[in-house]
């Protein structure tokens, strides 16, 4: 990257220092259960992970604590280092909330997590913004939580996961998306939960972690088709959706296939008036990390152009996970305006964030 632009990091995972950090926000009954059984997050299939227990080896603090478990750790090891303008917190230990079978406990944990995040993170650094966790497996409870925290100035999104009971276009989720629209909060879907409610891929159960990583885009493709053909964006014309950490280079050919198939099958879903790609361009964004590397660098630059990256791509580092993308060394060459949009302009507009760092206008020559 020749020049440095402001960076908005759309995927940061902040850790609980310990489960007791949630206790001030939970009833005595929940505390007693958690003393014995912990957070009760659903299992991950026993897959291995990368780095050191899933996280960057150099993110583990020397004092034996957990990575990214204090604001100071995040500031010194990431935000200050790269002069991050804003960082979107997507949590770590409670990311399985939407996959819990006990929706009431999931709702209580959502409330506790959101309060903990606000009090221990968002209120301590103006650069930090949060996505609210909600129990999407029970739409009434999810809406209740969105109504509770949705107006908080530092809550800028609602979080969801990839592996759920039904694809997100189904009417089951309508109350959640109505609330997202009412509070002007994008729905940010992170990978996770694949396999909790059934087979993680249409081909069954993969053996290795490197295989299950390839299931992410399968889920995202299914969600996208569902959203488009069930008319989600026709029914919720202001809704914005972000797909996090599920790859990006598959998008261009997928847009082409959606449009190709729709031309002959349009009458099955006549409410889909526009070519499917148009709904995606208007309503959907994707985060960059882990950005794929192509055989030759210019091939990746070309596919970014085909994917309308200037509208659809948001930078994310995934700090402190092992497959972290460096804000300064991961992205390929791209035109200046596209780079600015990817690094911060698109996210700033999407999450309604005031500009914190002034920049020179784009040079006309580019």
């Amino acid at each position, binding site marked *: 990257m020749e020049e440095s632009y402001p960076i908005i990091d759309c995927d940061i995972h902040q850790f609980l220092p310990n489960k007791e950090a949630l206790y001030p926000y939970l009833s005595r009954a929940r505390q007693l259960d958690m003393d014995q059984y912990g957070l009760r997050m659903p299992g991950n299939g026993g897959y291995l992970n*990368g*780095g*050191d227990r899933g996280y*960057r*080896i*150099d993110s583990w603090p020397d004092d034996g604590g957990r990575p990214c478990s204090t604001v100071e750790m995040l500031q010194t090891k990431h935000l200050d280092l790269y002069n991050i303008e804003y960082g979107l917190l997507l949590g770590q230990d409670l990311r399985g909330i939407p996959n819990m079978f006990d929706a009431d406990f999931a709702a209580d944990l959502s409330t506790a997590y959101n309060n903990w995040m606000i009090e221990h993170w968002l209120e301590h650094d103006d650069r930090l913004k949060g996505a609210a966790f909600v129990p999407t497996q029970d739409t009434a409870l999810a809406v209740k939580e969105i109504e509770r925290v949705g107006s908080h100035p530092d809550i800028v999104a609602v979080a969801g996961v990839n592996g759920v009971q039904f694809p997100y276009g189904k009417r089951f989720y309508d109350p959640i998306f109505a609330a997202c629209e009412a509070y002007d909060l994008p729905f940010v879907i992170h990978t996770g939960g694949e396999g909790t409610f059934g087979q993680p891929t249409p081909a069954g159960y993969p053996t290795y972690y490197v295989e299950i990583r390839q299931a992410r885009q399968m889920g995202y493709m299914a969600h996208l088709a569902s959203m488009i053909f069930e008319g989600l964006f026709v029914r919720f014309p202001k809704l914005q959706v972000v797909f996090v950490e599920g790859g990006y280079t598959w998008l261009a050919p997928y847009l082409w296939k959606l449009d190709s198939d729709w031309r002959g099958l349009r009458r099955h879903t006549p409410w889909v008036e526009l070519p499917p790609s148009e709904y995606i361009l208007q309503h959907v964004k994707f985060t960059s990390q882990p950005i794929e590397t192509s055989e030759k660098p210019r091939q990746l630059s070309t596919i970014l152009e085909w994917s309308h990256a200037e509208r659809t791509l948001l930078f994310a580092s995934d700090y402190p996970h*092992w*497959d*972290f*993308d*460096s804000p*300064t*060394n*991961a992205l390929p060459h791209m035109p200046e305006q596209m780079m600015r949009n990817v690094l911060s302009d698109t996210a700033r507009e999407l999450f309604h964030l005031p500009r914190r760092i002034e920049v020179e206008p784009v040079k006309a020559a580019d």
Partner: protein
Amino acid sequence: MARHVVAKLADFPPGTRKFIELENLSIGVFNIHGKFYALRNSCPHQSAPLCRGWVCGTLVATKAYEYVYAREDEIIKCPWHGWEFEIATGRSVFNPHKVRVRTYEVAVEPEEEDPSIPTFPVTVEDEFVVVYA
């Protein structure tokens, strides 16, 4: 190539590593079972501080479903994305011919003598680990 003193030999025991910071260049120096190695502290992938990674062995290529852990302490694993490099040569495990990290010559030498100052016989405790970079 310039000579850079890293540490006194006595202060650099096996199983430890040290870093030297030159202008625009960070180098990691390792004492592995009494032998010294120096690598550029920057991964060719995304410039992560490679030499902060793990010194370890690796799973060598085998028939399917066989696991053979070997080459203990010959490999460094990048602290970010886990790319593995052979410490002695800087060659990556996954593509030794195309993906590699720069290595530097390390030596154990007595301190360079300044001829203007009278010197005394040195003992082994006065040896220094030096890197040529």
